[in-house]
């Protein structure tokens, strides 16, 4: 990647949910990352680790029971600073999202084309004939014949509806696309088609340069094949982040290593090992490293000291005492 300015920078993002019985759940705990144009980053981890909450916070789409702190910087401007007033001009226009299960969220009694045109009309970008022409272009871009704009959702297969959902997210020509489990309910062949589309969109977008993509998924092989970088989340924090190849071959957090070891590979012979236990509850203060009870390499400081964010290699971060010589030396 060149030294161009980041397209999006997320700084110290926190999300708390108010719980009905009192108390708070600290769902996202200081997430920080930045992405350059055309970069594809995978956000991975188990259910409930804060992946979806993170991207919903970036979109400003969390429910009223959530409070958010931190910055989301687009073109030098913090869009979270004024709440809905500062986010809404950017939503769909600069950052858009393909929601989990989006392909099943189309209105069944409206034509696909009309639904894709809706964000353009609402944002005053195009209407009438111009909007219809753009819808055709968008459909062609995602690999659907433009003539199908007049069809209803039930006339589309699952894979085509997912393409249409991506076309809709692209309606206002965003710079950043957040895709939440975009291939989870799809067959491998259709998944391959959708992933190929995401890669193509980030490499070229029409005549312009690439879309920046954040791919949220629990499917590590998908991220391995599609993304340049990965951020591994655990208990609301990014516990490791770095280039895809290094994350796989030289992980610096036991959670990353154990996640890969729990994932069978098509041609691999190594034993597939599950991770014991479950992620911690986030409605109480966590002492020490949140992964310690499940970790196969925990040592003394893990029980009491929260690990520092270190950079064991340039451009690679991990949140684990094993990278902290002060901790390992003190222990030995």
């Amino acid at each position, binding site marked *: 990647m060149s030294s161009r300015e980041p397209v999006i920078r997320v700084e110290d993002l926190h999300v708390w949910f108010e719980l009905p019985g009192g108390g708070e759940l600290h769902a996202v705990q200081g997430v920080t990352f930045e992405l350059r144009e055309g970069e594809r980053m995978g956000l991975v981890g188990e259910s409930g680790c804060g992946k979806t909450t993170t991207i919903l916070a970036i979109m400003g789409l969390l429910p009223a029971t959530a409070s958010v702190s931190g910055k989301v910087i687009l073109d030098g401007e913090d869009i979270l600073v004024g709440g809905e007033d500062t986010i809404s001009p950017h939503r769909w226009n600069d950052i858009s999202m393909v929601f989990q299960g989006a392909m099943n969220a189309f209105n069944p009694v409206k034509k696909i084309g009309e639904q894709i045109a809706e964000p353009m009309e609402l944002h005053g970008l195009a209407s009438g004939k111009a909007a219809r022409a753009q819808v055709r272009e968008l459909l062609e871009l995602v690999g659907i014949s433009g003539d199908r704009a007049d069809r209803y959702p039930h006339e589309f297969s699952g894979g085509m509806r997912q393409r249409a959902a991506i076309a809709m997210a692209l309606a206002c020509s965003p710079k950043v696309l957040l895709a939440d489990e975009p291939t989870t309910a799809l067959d*491998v062949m259709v998944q391959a088609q959708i*992933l190929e589309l995401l890669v193509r969109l980030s490499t070229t977008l029409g005549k312009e340069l690439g879309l920046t993509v954040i791919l949220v998924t629990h499917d590590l*092989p998908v991220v*391995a*094949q599609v993304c340049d970088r990965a951020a591994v989340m655990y208990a609301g924090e990014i516990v490791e982040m770095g280039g895809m190849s290094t994350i796989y071959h030289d992980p610096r957090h036991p959670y990353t290593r154990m996640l890969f070891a729990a994932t*069978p*590979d*098509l041609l*691999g012979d190594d034993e597939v090992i*599950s991770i014991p236990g479950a992620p911690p509850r986030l409605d109480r203060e966590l002492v020490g490293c949140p992964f310690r009870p499940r970790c196969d390499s925990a040592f003394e400081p893990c029980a009491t000291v929260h690990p520092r964010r270190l950079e064991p290699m340039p451009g690679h971060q991990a949140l684990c005492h094993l990278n902290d010589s002060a901790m390992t030396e003190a222990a030995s």
Partner: protein
Amino acid sequence: MSAAEGTAAQLLEVEGLVTRYPIARGLYGALRRQPKLTVQAVNGVSFSIGAGEMVALVGESGCGKTSTAQTVIRMVASEAGSIRFRGTEIGALGARELRPLRREIQIIYQDPYESLDPRFTVRDTIEEPIRVHGLVDSSAAREAKVHEAMERAGLTPPELFIDRYPHELSGGQRQRVAIAAALVLEPKLLIADEPVSMLDVSVRAGILALLDGLRKDGMGVLMITHDLSTAAHFADRIAVMYLGRIVEEGPAKQVVRNPQHPYTKALISVVPRRDPDQQTVPQILQGETPNPIRMPSGCHFHPRCPVAEARCKEIDPELREVEGVDPGHRAACILLGAL
């Protein structure tokens, strides 16, 4: 594997199985006397499972994997073909005669959030099959059986879980409860329909290892999955289905390392690898599986096949051994060997 080369007696032998579902014509269609249409969900499927063997049925949605399993357990009636369980033809047995056999073939489902009754405790769920089949009279013996099944399913110590309700359990624990409820009847054959696809990656391996352990203890396992990596890792043999047919079948590792049928080759090529440096060259088939109401002529795969020839439209290929490849590895393609 054909019966002739089977070493031990096969647990389950399925031959030429056909399952069709009628399609509602609607009032208008009936009045107009439009022809009755059917979906050919299973279209001449043959396979067998031995004791201590795990066979994975893989393929895309709608290829007939689940219909095959449902027909085998007689939840759905077959149109043709034979189903032999431990040597007995069960395809034509009546409900009463089937009942003792139902104990011996158990099924677990994809979604442990849906398959357990939310108002049943773990004990109630696991005990119910014993009551239904009237296996044990004394409650002490029943409790002992429940404990034993829970231990086999890895819900240990049983006291910790036995009085809990499904909402108090994680997804992996729920699936273990479903497995315990199947094990309590001491089945010979377990059918697992996408047993881990709803579960988190971190717990999948545990459930699969549990099934693998049951297989090692002599149980036959039919696993239905769309995940080829899982099938390659845990199954002894893989059968690949396309549009109601098995198009390739053989030893699991052979099928994924040396696929013979053009469909299997394409399917294997699009499975994402775990290592980012092993970039796959996906051979993406265009379009999606055709509608099984109007089956293509000849080889059902020919409209999407990258190597189809003119004669593939006419000839409907049979599964046959692939020369120069491991014994027991078969594929249904007339171009085998020439590819």
